[in-house]
């Protein structure tokens, strides 16, 4: 599901890069919600990185006798239908969700940037082709194509990164194209062109810095969407490979037991909500902090 949010335009650094980011950081620090979200996200990253030491049990260790054991002192979140510790699986699931969010958005950002720049900078036929592609990619239901790609590539983490990345570049490309259209007319870019600066140099040295705020925001707000998409795909059985724990596949597994063991569905669901919320709020904070228009 894509909620297109108002995005900021291309940024000009009147007081230099340094000042701009310092000012942004100062604004972000003042935003308590965003800082809290940042803290939550950092905590989640620690969970993901050090899952091996933090998780109390092996997430894939089955103890059939503990089947659907409710939360208790030994297993804080209870056990699933195979007697696996739900807390440990939630912690390991964090790895899947965060890595899917990060890597897929990195891929999307890379494709989106170059597509957008190509369209905005070269214009004419390139623009026509890229705009056509952007429209085409926005006209297919995201989940359908994601399913088709997962069928084609097979389930697995890397395939999730690839397919979600390949499908979510269109929004970024559209924004970057807009940014570049504004920037192209600026004097210093024109001057650089007249001076005979190569296109690649202009794209990387001059256009990229001005587009970075846009990219930061699209990536931050793209991550929660990717996490939700992963959950949906895992729910449909097209996500990570068994027995890897992922929040989406845990919800799918819990559905059969939701009547008598509500806790099993509750914890992975809450994990998704907390993570997605944190990224959404941080994204909002970043947008407020990075958007010069709101600085008055």
């Amino acid at each position, binding site marked *: 599901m*894509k909620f297109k949010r108002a995005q900021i335009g291309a940024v000009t650094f009147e007081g230099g890069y340094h000042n701009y980011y310092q000012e942004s950081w100062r604004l972000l620090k003042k935003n308590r919600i965003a800082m809290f979200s940042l803290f939550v996200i950092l905590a989640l990253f620690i969970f993901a990185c050090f899952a091996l030491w933090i998780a109390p049990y092996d997430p894939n260790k089955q103890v059939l006798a503990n089947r659907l054991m409710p939360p208790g002192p030994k297993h804080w979140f209870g056990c699933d239908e195979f007697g696996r510790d739900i807390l440990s699986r939630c912690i390991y699931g964090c790895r899947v969700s965060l890595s899917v969010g990060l890597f897929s958005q990195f891929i999307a950002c890379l494709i989106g940037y170059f597509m957008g720049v190509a369209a905005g900078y070269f214009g004419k036929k390139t623009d026509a082709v890229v705009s056509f592609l952007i429209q085409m990619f*926005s006209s297919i239901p995201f989940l*359908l194509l994601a399913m088709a*790609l997962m069928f084609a590539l097979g389930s697995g983490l890397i395939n999730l990164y690839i397919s979600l990345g390949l499908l979510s570049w269109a929004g970024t490309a559209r924004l970057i194209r807009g940014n570049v259209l504004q920037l192209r007319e600026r004097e210093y870019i024109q001057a650089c062109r007249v001076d005979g600066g190569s296109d690649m140099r202009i794209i990387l040295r001059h256009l990229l810095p001005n587009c970075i705020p846009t990219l930061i925001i699209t990536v931050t707000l793209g991550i929660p969407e990717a996490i939700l998409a992963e959950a949906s795909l895992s729910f449909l059985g097209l996500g990570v490979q068994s027995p890897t724990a992922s929040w989406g596949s845990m919800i799918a597994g819990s559905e059969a037991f939701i*009547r008598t063991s509500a806790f099993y*569905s509750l914890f992975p*669901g809450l994990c*998704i909500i907390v993570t997605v919320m944190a990224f*959404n709020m941080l994204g909002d904070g970043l947008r407020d902090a990075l958007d010069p228009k709101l600085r008055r």
Partner: protein
Amino acid sequence: MKKYLIKRVLLAIGIIFALSCVTFVILNVIPGDPVALMLGDNADAATVKAVRANLGMDKPLPQQYLSWVLNLLTGDLGISFFQKKPVLTLLTTAFQYTVRLATISYLVAVVLGIGIGIFAAVNRGKIADHALMALAITGISAPSFWVAILLQIYVGLQFKVFPVSGLAGPISYILPCIALGTRYAAGIARITRTSMLEILNQDFIRTAEAKGLSPLRTVFIHALRNAMLPILTVIGTNIGELLTGSMLTETVFNIPGIGKLLIDSITKRDLPIVQGCVIYIAVVCVTIYLVVDILYAVIDPHIRLEGN
């Protein structure tokens, strides 16, 4: 204007054909075979071959695609591999369910979303603003299928009033509409708030306030009109999404709309249906983008259509 429209329609047709071509290739490349599935667990290679020939799947791919396009030009979307019914009939039936569900959920979402958004913007920084926005952000952060399942069990079964599946009477719309609508309401509320805040900060609103116009008038007539552009974009893309069927919500609530049709047929590799659905969805999306672009021009005369 006329020239622009013609250009856009041609572009739309181009997109639709490109899409159909891409889906055709993808569907034929991905693993899985509808015939092997059709034959059940007792499938054997010889029968698979015979049935493929019977369905015309033994011909070269370009030839299959060409005959599909030629049929499409005469309005024939083909026959479903599994159901043996014309795809057009299946699509029309499914469409009715999806449209009904989409319209109701979206009406709720728009009214609720814009209302909450304005209220929060006007009360920027106050508790009500924070509370509503926290609610909204929870709304878009929860996986929709999870919300749907919880609604079924903790609302549907508890009160025994709402059917937990299907779309039989008016009352059966309530749960799926909540599951679908709140999510969109949350999105609209957030975007409304942001764009209202931007407008309320601008000089002409301050002038209006200074001139002593009533706050209500300022908010609804001046600010909302100007804040409408981004809201409209969101609404436009959302409607596209809703009309193309929400696959997971429809599946969980057992609503035989476009989304469920699509998910069923792609898992079965029922190519004619998937192709038909993609064409249908592309037509809906492209039309809506066009309408939104035209509305842009109506609301904000600064935007000239040619500039896009």
